[in-house]
């Protein structure tokens, strides 16, 4: 990795030379400003969301009655909820595979090229720095349209990329790969640069071919990076909303609508905040499972190797 190895993190606060005493030196004062904001704008809405998901509250804050698990029961029996949850899972699978493999491939390519690094980095990582609205407007208005769009215009085809349910999700994946592969590319590039050079020199002296060096040195050493990249990518893809909302609005039909958009629709166009919270918490449960895998990975990296 790019950073120094972290020693065992148990180190208790230093006890030898004590700072002055007095209430201004209390550790809680350092923690308080962040913790206040954290309580107000993360913990509180998290608990409120749970409470709302058990109520029939609407966006105006009225009709706030406790309904138990009725919202969850309704969600589990709601085909549109399942459709949108399914869309999110399909998008996650379809996007994670190329985003990880292409990220790795581009990093290997650029790492071995050793010159005009700035050009490769700008090309592959640049799009990641564009706001989702910029990416969506660009692809919606000038890349995907039938006839004059860049893809159809260049290929001479007339495909309704976004208007056809059978291609719309693939188009979302394509745009997302173009937009965000730079992040994984960067993480892999950093990992490649931290592989000690002498490993390759020894292998080269032994007459190992480039392919052999890749298979037996590079790829095994990228194992942990790959685990992290996959988990981060799963989490990012499960949260997909912006580009789909902005480009297809979830359509055609419900063919691309992700679960976050379904929750958003329920809450902000259907005014049913309680139901929207329940739908959100179903996604949250899924994300917690993936996050726990992530925490395990982080913890493993803190153990001295």
């Amino acid at each position: 990795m790019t950073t120094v190895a972290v020693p065992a993190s148990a180190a208790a606060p230093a006890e030898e030379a004590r700072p002055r005493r007095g209430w201004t030196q209390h550790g809680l004062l350092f923690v308080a400003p962040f913790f206040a904001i954290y309580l107000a704008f993360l913990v509180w809405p998290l608990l409120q969301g749970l409470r709302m998901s058990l109520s029939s509250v609407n966006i105006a804050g009225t009709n706030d009655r406790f309904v138990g698990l009725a919202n969850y029961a309704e969600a589990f029996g709601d085909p549109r909820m399942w459709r949108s949850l399914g869309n999110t899972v399909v998008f996650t699978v379809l996007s994670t595979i190329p985003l990880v493999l292409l990220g790795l491939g581009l990093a290997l390519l650029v790492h071995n090229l050793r010159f005009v690094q700035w050009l490769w980095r700008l090309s592959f990582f640049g799009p990641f720095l564009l706001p989702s609205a910029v990416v969506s407007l660009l692809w919606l208005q000038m890349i995907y349209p039938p006839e004059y769009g860049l893809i159809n215009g260049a290929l001479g085809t007339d495909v309704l990329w976004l208007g056809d349910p059978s291609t719309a999700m693939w188009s979302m994946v394509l745009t997302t790969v173009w937009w965000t592969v730079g992040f994984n590319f960067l993480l892999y590039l950093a990992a490649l640069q931290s592989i000690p050079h002498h490993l390759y020199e020894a292998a080269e002296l032994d007459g190992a071919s480039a392919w052999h060096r890749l298979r037996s040195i590079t790829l095994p050493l990228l194992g942990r990076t790959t685990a992290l990249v996959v988990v981060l990518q799963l989490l990012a893809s499960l949260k997909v909303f912006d580009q789909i909302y902005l480009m297809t609005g979830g359509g055609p039909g419900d063919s691309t609508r992700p679960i976050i958009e379904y929750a958003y629709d329920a809450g902000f166009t259907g005014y049913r905040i309680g139901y929207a919270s329940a739908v959100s918490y179903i996604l949250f449960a899924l994300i917690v499972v993936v996050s726990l895998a992530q925490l395990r990975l982080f913890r493993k990296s803190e153990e001295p190797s």
Partner: protein
Amino acid sequence: MTKRFGWGRLVLLAVALVLAAAWLAPIAWAVATSLKPETETTKLPLEWIGSRVTLDAYSLVLGTGGIVKWAVNSLVTAAVVTAMTVLFSAMAAYGFARTSFRGRRALLTVILAGIMVPPQVLIAPLFAEMVSLGLVDTWWAIILPQVAAPLIVYILYKFFQDVPPELEQAAFVDGAGRWRVFFTIVLPLSRPVLAAVSIFTFITTWNNFLWPFLVSTDPNTMTLPVGLANVVQGTFGLRYAQIMASVVLAGLPLLVVFVLFQRQIIRGVAHTGLAGQ
């Protein structure tokens, strides 16, 4: 790795050039379209350069004023979020890493658990909270929830644990208090990691869409992504040169900054993206 210049490397270079061209093509197409006269933007067969190169679309877009206002809003909110996040997170991380007080472990656990909470699932209750606080359509509604980023506390906490305590102890012996040690010794030592999390926070805030989109309905408080999504599509209709000029104007600032500060930005994104791993 390979020292000689062989066919293998030539093939690699060709592949890289083709891929780079493919990756740059959409951006180049946006720039090309924005420089065409409006009547030629949908002409077939496609042409990269129109009958004349014109900046009309840019002057029309800038003339309506919206985009400049949104850019200022984005800049201000992203700068305030970054400053507050880094200062408060660094203070909290230092408190957790270097002081001991009752409840320290419990508070730390509550914060670390928050890393798992995706902001997207909080939109409904958070919006209700902003309504009751009367903050909708203000900068504070955009700013405050983005400051509550537990990941940054975690990264800085891990960093501070590795700062040798001897550096601080010398100052404590001289009678310095914790605050002076924090601001004059610990923070200056941490400049690289602070730069990394600042860059990461700024980029994510500058580009954030869903939350600012929910809490700004007034074009005067909209950030750049929200203004583009809301207004550009509505008012410019099918004037593609103007839409692409807006896209270029909105996308350009970070790309220019990236070209200027590539090394720092890459380090910042990679370091924070991997949560300091």
